[in-house]
């Protein structure tokens, strides 16, 4: 795939339905601009997860990305968000 990672985004409809499914109250809705912005947040979240995993593997001199690399960066990732 020659797409740059900047072009791959979450669909607004997916984000909207996703957030709605976790709301405790039925009447809670998400504004259109808020949906777009949350899609950006999720995009950054995934990018950070991916890039930090890569950095961890590189720091350990590993060619393959293993679950251990992700597990090591996970705590800080969650704290940063």
């Amino acid at each position, binding site marked *: *795939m020659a*797409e*740059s*990672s900047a072009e*791959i*985004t*979450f*669909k607004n409809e*997916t984000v909207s*339905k*996703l*957030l*709605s*499914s*976790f*709301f*405790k*109250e039925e*009447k*809670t*809705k*998400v*504004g259109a*601009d*808020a949906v*777009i*912005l*949350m899609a*950006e*947040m*999720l*995009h*950054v*979240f*995934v*990018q950070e*997860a*991916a*890039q930090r*995993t*890569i950095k961890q*593997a590189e720091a350990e001199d590993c*060619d*393959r*990305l*293993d*679950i251990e*690399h*992700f*597990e090591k960066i*996970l705590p800080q*990732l*969650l*704290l*940063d*968000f």
Partner: protein
Amino acid sequence: MLSTTSCLANVNCREKMPTAMDEEERKLQRLKAAVHYTVGRLCQSIGEDHQKEFSRQVIAAIAETTFRQCDIFAKDLEAFARHAKRSTVSVEDVKLTARRSTALSNFIQRKSEEIASANQEQRDTRKKIAGKRKNKDTEMV
């Protein structure tokens, strides 16, 4: 405790209830799959940039984490909106969820400004088109 008049209603209710929960479960699975799909594509793209490959296990883990993070975001967003006595989550609520990291905060701020200016451009374009139509109508003699 159940009156005879509500008996029929309850029978219908019992028939509906399992299906309603199944539908919820199916919906959640579809959403998880959608998240997994985009996460997979993103990871593949980022991996290519660094000449590294993400294993399916790692992609699945990132997807699951992202899905769970959405739950946290959603609950926060709902709480912020409620605190402001609104039932619709706004851009301001989203900005609050980005408060923990300065870099993230700034990024989200910039993005919200981009969105706002894009909206303004759309409104200006629509006004122009509406204006042109008006002139055309008055010119037709």
